């Protein structure tokens, strides 16, 4: 209980400080702390799957993405609009307070006992062969959402690349990295990825029965691929590389193909033949992990930039 209050207070304090902060680097550092604190909150809420995702994506990948952005727009605070005047700011604050109050009232007045699908998940999880209820929802009961979300990532890669300047088209993604001499960073870039890959495989594999799974594993893999890139030891392949594009599309394409096969043999999209559910789900999970990892890394690295 005490821990709840503590984490809650810290989250609110860090969020306020992020919004109010003056320097961009400080704001992003605060945001990384926000992500870490949120993952503690998820542990307290009994959602370890989400805690893992929040730590990996919220704090880790988003942190790296926003830090890179902060260092590149630093000094050019290209404001999109003018800062709202005092009266406008007060009006916005009142409006936001109203939203918060309405939300709080709604949360406090939710019905008790809470409606829940947990019993239905428990009753049907046997058909999937999985032990982790969240994985069962993601891969079977609401498999469509997961499929669409993997397609969203492919679309995001296409969309991000479409923002490249024309003269950089087909080039290597991301800004040029300084090639560092053998320093501590280079050491870490060599040491950490093998350990990280082990952890990712572990997280993927236990994901069928315990918290973990493809998103978490993919986020870790993406981070491990980016480490040597950040150390200047690895140059990402050009976006025109066929294998790179195939790798990003392969997982979602396989998932849709298996879904269509389910329609042809079982009569419903994403229906798994009885007895084959678990192996098919694991094949899809592994393929998706690889594709999502590459997509996430490409999204953080960003589209090709102008030659300096």
């Amino acid at each position, binding site marked *: 209980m*005490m*821990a709840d209050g*503590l*984490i809650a207070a*810290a989250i609110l*304090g*860090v969020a306020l*400080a992020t919004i109010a*902060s*003056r*320097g*961009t*680097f*400080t704001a*992003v*550092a*605060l945001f*990384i*702390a926000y992500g*870490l*604190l949120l*993952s*503690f909150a998820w*542990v307290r809420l009994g959602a*370890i799957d989400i*805690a*893992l995702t929040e*730590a*990996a994506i919220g*704090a*880790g990948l988003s*942190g*790296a993405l926003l*830090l*890179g952005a*902060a*260092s590149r727009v*630093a000094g050019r605070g290209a404001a999109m609009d003018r800062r709202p005047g005092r009266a406008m700011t007060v009006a916005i604050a009142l409006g936001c307070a109203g939203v918060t109050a309405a939300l709080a009232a709604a949360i406090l007045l939710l019905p008790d006992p809470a409606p829940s699908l947990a019993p239905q998940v428990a009753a049907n999880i046997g058909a999937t062969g999985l032990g982790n209820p969240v994985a069962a929802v993601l891969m079977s009961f609401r498999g469509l959402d997961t499929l669409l979300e993997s397609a969203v990532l492919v679309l995001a890669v296409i969309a991000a690349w479409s923002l490249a300047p024309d003269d950089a088209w087909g080039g290597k993604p991301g800004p040029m990295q300084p090639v560092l001499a053998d320093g501590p*960073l280079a050491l*870490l870039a060599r040491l*950490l990825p093998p*350990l*990280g890959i082990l*952890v990712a495989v*572990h*997280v993927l594999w*236990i994901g069928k029965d*315990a*918290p*973990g799974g493809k998103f*978490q594993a993919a*986020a*870790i893999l993406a*981070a*491990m691929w*980016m*480490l040597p890139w*950040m150390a200047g030891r690895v140059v990402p392949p050009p976006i025109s590389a066929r294998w790179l594009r195939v790798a990003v599309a392969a997982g979602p394409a396989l998932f849709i193909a298996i879904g269509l096969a389910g329609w042809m043999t079982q009569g419903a999209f994403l229906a798994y033949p009885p007895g084959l559910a678990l192996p098919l789900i694991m094949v899809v999970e592994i393929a998706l992990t690889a594709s999502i990892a590459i997509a996430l890394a490409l999204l953080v690295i960003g589209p090709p930039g102008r030659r300096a």
Partner: protein
Amino acid sequence: MPELLLTAAVIVLVSVIAGLPRILRGPAVVDRIMAAQLLGTGGIAALLLAGVATATPSFVDAALVLALLAAFATIAMARAAPRGDDAP
């Protein structure tokens, strides 16, 4: 014993959260990074304590992931650190 371990977890959290104002106050960029790193390490310690106290193996997995990503975030921060003190 589990109660004691959970208490210890809360104490670690209190301790590292108390360091958070350093992110805001700085003044050096490295201070901000250190405070975030301390939060990560403290979170790992608290997860391990709570995991043993409640016999939840998945807490250790969460700690593993946190350890990896905290290192990753630290490096990202060190790389992106602006010269000077992040003046607005």
